[in-house]
Each structure stands twice: as structure tokens, then as C-alpha cells.
């Protein structure tokens, strides 16, 4: 797994993708921080985090699109799948590499709290809650992107598909609210990524929420492994 992680991580910085992603994170979060917090003279950073939720929904797929699609296209999957390494380790190594790059972009969010703290008393529970929520949702986006990427040879298709999946995940609660059957809408509300996310942003650290997000990540990683395995049998 170490080998995969190291290669994938360094690949991000051999191409512009890693730099571009981190730059986008810094640019948008900085702009939102100025727009929603500094320019109105407030101390609330929730809007900054919410803005980044949507930014990551679209830009994490840029990070994950080549993870498996490029291997499929360049036939380098033949090297990985014939090497003495388990598929779970292979998939997890790739996930971790992309997730670390994501966190390199995400971590800057904490600095806004520090900046505010120099002038006013900040509610750290709120900031850390938001930060945890964004870090967890980032994991979901990365694992979903990895899964979609494993289905195709085209990076473009992987990116567009992943954005679609991310939007669908974020919209589950909207769908839930329009479905008249209570039974179904209750289930949808329970698996609504956005509702779980909102819970954290109010400063409540919910263990159930953490387990929920980690489970979603695990499911995406698991189905990715199944996709790779299935290809052998096709």
C-alpha cells in the first residue's frame, strides 16, 4: 500500500493537478472568508465552510478522475493487478493519496479561525465542527470519485460522472422532502449526506455522524474493489 500511496501522491505534484487543486481551495476559501465574514464584520464562518462544500463537490472529482481511469487507459492496471498486492490495499492506497491532497487544501480553513481569533473571541466548537464535517464530506467525495474513475477509461467521463454522483448525494434531503410517502422519505432523510453535514456545522460533534460518513466511504471503497475484481471475471 505504501508504494501505491507514494506513487499516487507524488503523481499529483508531477502534474499541475495537485497544485491547481490546492490553489483552488485557497482561492475560494479566501474569497468566501472575505465575502461572508470580513467584509460584513462578522465572526461567523459557517457560510465559508458551506461555500467550500459546493466548491469541493465540483473540484474533488478533478482530483480523483485519473486515479483508476488513467490506469485503465494506459494498461498500467496490468502491472498493479498482477503484482502480489491485495485489491483492498491498492484501492485504499489510492484513496489515501487523493485524500491527503484534499486535506492539504482543506487545512487552510483552520487558519481563518486563527486570524479571527487575533481580533475577537471565536467559537472554536463551531469552527472545528464545520472543519470535521468538511473533512468527512471530502472523504465521501474522494471515495465516490475513485469508484466512478474505476468504471471508465476516460478521465473526462470520470470527472463528470463523479460530479453527478456528488450532486445526487447532496440532494438526497431535497428529494426526501418532496416524496409524499413517509416511510421512504424517512429512510432518505436518514441517509441524507447534507442533513448529517448540517448537524456538524451547528457545532455538535455527533459520533453517529462520524460513523455514517466513514460507512459511506467504506461502501464506496468496497464497491471499487468489487469493480476491479469483477473485471477479472468478465
Amino acid at each position, binding site marked *: 500500500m*505504501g*508504494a*501505491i500511496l*507514494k*506513487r499516487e501522491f*507524488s*503523481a499529483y505534484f*508531477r*502534474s499541475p493537478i495537485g497544485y491547481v487543486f490546492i490553489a483552488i481551495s485557497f482561492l475560494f476559501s479566501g474569497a468566501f472568508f472575505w465575502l461572508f465574514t470580513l467584509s460584513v464584520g462578522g465572526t461567523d464562518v459557517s457560510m465559508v465552510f458551506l461555500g467550500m462544500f459546493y466548491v469541493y463537490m465540483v473540484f474533488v472529482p478533478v482530483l480523483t478522475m485519473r486515479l483508476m481511469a488513467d490506469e485503465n487507459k*494506459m*494498461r*498500467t*492496471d*496490468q*502491472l*498493479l*493487478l*498482477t*503484482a*502480489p*498486492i*491485495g485489491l483492498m490495499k491498492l484501492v485504499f492506497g489510492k484513496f489515501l493519496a487523493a485524500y491527503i491532497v484534499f486535506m492539504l487544501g482543506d487545512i487552510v480553513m483552520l487558519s481563518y479561525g486563527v486570524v479571527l481569533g487575533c481580533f475577537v473571541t471565536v467559537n472554536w466548537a463551531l469552527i472545528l465542527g464545520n472543519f470535521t464535517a468538511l473533512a468527512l464530506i471530502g472523504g465521501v467525495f474522494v471515495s465516490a470519485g475513485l469508484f466512478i474513475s474505476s468504471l471508465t477509461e476516460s478521465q473526462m467521463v470520470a470527472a463528470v460522472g463523479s460530479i453527478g454522483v456528488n450532486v445526487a448525494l447532496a440532494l438526497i434531503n431535497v428529494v426526501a422532502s418532496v416524496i409524499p410517502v413517509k416511510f421512504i422519505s424517512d429512510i432518505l432523510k436518514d441517509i441524507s449526506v447534507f442533513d448529517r453535514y448540517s448537524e456538524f456545522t451547528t457545532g455538535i460533534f455527533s459520533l453517529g455522524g462520524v460513523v455514517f460518513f466513514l460507512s459511506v466511504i467504506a461502501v464506496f471503497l468496497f464497491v471499487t474493489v468489487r469493480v476491479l475484481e469483477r*473485471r*477479472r*471475471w*468478465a
Partner: protein
Amino acid sequence: MIEVRGLTKSYGSKKAVDNISFTAEDGQVLGFLGPNGAGKSTTMNILTGYISSTEGQALINGVDILEDPIKAKSFIGYLPEMPPLYFDMTVNEYLDFVYSLKKCKLPKKSHLNEICEIVKLEDVRKRLIKNLSKGYKQRVGFAQALVGNPKVLILDEPTVGLDPKQIIEIRTLIKRLGRNHTVILSSHILPEVQAVCDRIVVINKGRIVANDNADSLARNLSADHKLVMQIDGASEEISKLLSSVPDVERVFVGRQIDEKVWEYHIEAKEGTDIRRDIFRKLASRNYPILMMKSNELSLEEVFLKLTTGDEYGGAEKTAERFDLLEKGGDK
């Protein structure tokens, strides 16, 4: 050592590989010969665990590739048809990656140095793979297969895209490696397999049509009884003369090369070697021989011969033969 038993791979109703069995012993180079689409790559992909078989078993050093894939894969070095290279890495970075991917335990620096020396990569180790020529890319692919000094080497058309000098180098290398490894290589070039392999498995349309050691197969496939010659002299007289050589069955006068030079196609009884007799006969009449060569069998002729020739006869072969001829006739 590799044992393959009753391997079948179906894609829907089409059988890419149909019930093939063979064994490659330690210290043996086994050649997999067949035209494009015969099922060579499919078989190799099954052996290396990249795809699974529909039926049958593949044992690598006694380990079933489906039952304990990680252990079986650790015995194998694989060079696929298209070398699996990361174009954004340098040769050094790439080999480092493969080294840790295969969880290799050998001393890293000296091991990688040795491999680069063997495949002659020393000069390009710091260059990006994307900028290398096709021949060098192929060598990097080869180097990758050698990392970890695996007991079994599986090479899918290892000489494709190389220039003649490199081909000879790679062939010599494979022969050398064959002494203490089990090597399986595929090719669609008959002389190449003959030059390198101890044992030859000929495969066509997913089925094995011959499985024999290289010498006896070569003997059966040799075509010394069919000659192409260029002889200086009047064509009528020479063709009469050639026809009078014992065992000669047919003589065709081919194209005219020069004012007094014609090309001749000579067929003699199968299994005879008429070259010496012809030389003596022509020499006695003072006709200079400008060229004489055996009419080499094309791969198609090889298959025809293997599937219709009596030396491979017997009931099962006959059944196969009819099947093949039927399929061939569809075209």
C-alpha cells in the same frame, strides 16, 4: 514451473481459449506460437491473474492462481503486450515503485543496478519514460518484469518494436534467463520461437495444435524439400535438368531476373534434402547457382501442416483438423 490444465476462457459464446493444457518445467523456455487473436495474450493474462479462467486450473510453482493469487503472483514477472509504464515517471522512479510494489527483499540499489545493466538501461535511468524511444520503453517493461528476480517470467511478444540488434540482444537475454527461470514467451514469428525456445506450443483459434520440443517440431516443419533458386542459364534446359534430380517432383520456372537468369521453384518429396544433389548436377554442367534457399513456411502453412500433416495424426488430431478446416473455410 507452470502447469496449465484444461484452461478455458469464454466471452459469451465465443471461446477465446479452449481447453488448453501444457507444462513448463523449471529452466525451460516455452514458446507460445500463434497468429494474432489466437489466444496467446488471453492465456498469459490468465496465468498472471489479470483475468480469470472460465474453467480449468493454472498452477504457478504448485500454487493455484485463483486460490492464492498473492502468493502465486509473487513468483511471476510479467511483461504484457503493452508495457505497463507510467509516462510521468523517470526510469529510476518507476523501477523504485515496482520494487516496493512487489515487496522485493533483495538489496535495492545493487539489484536495480544489475537489472539495468542486463537490459542496458544505464544511460536513460534519469530520463522520463514518456521521452524514451519504443525500444527503450520495451526494455523498461522488461526490467520491470525482472524486478524481484521472479522464478517465472511471462513475456508477451517481448521483441515487438525493437530493431534487429535489440532483438538479438533480447533473445540472448531470454536464453540466459531461461537457464534458471521458467520462461513463457509468446510470438507470432516462427523463427523467433525456434531460436529461443526449448519447447513450443502452437496455438490457433484458442486451441493447441502442437506441443512438442523445439527440435522435433523444427524438423517436422522444415521445408528443405521446397527450394527457391536463381540459376544462370537457359531456363528450358535447366528445368529439365532439375527435374531429373532424384526425388524432385515438380519444377516451376518463375520470374526472369536477368537476361539469362531465372528463378526456379522446386518441390521434392517431403522429408528429403535435395540441395546437394542439385548442386552437383548443376556444377557438372557448369550452371552457376546465384541463389538457393529453403522455401520457409509461413505461419499459415505451419498451421495447415500441423493440422493436416500425418506426423501429428491420430484420432483426436483428425477431429481438431476438421474443426479448423471448417472454421478456416468460413473466411
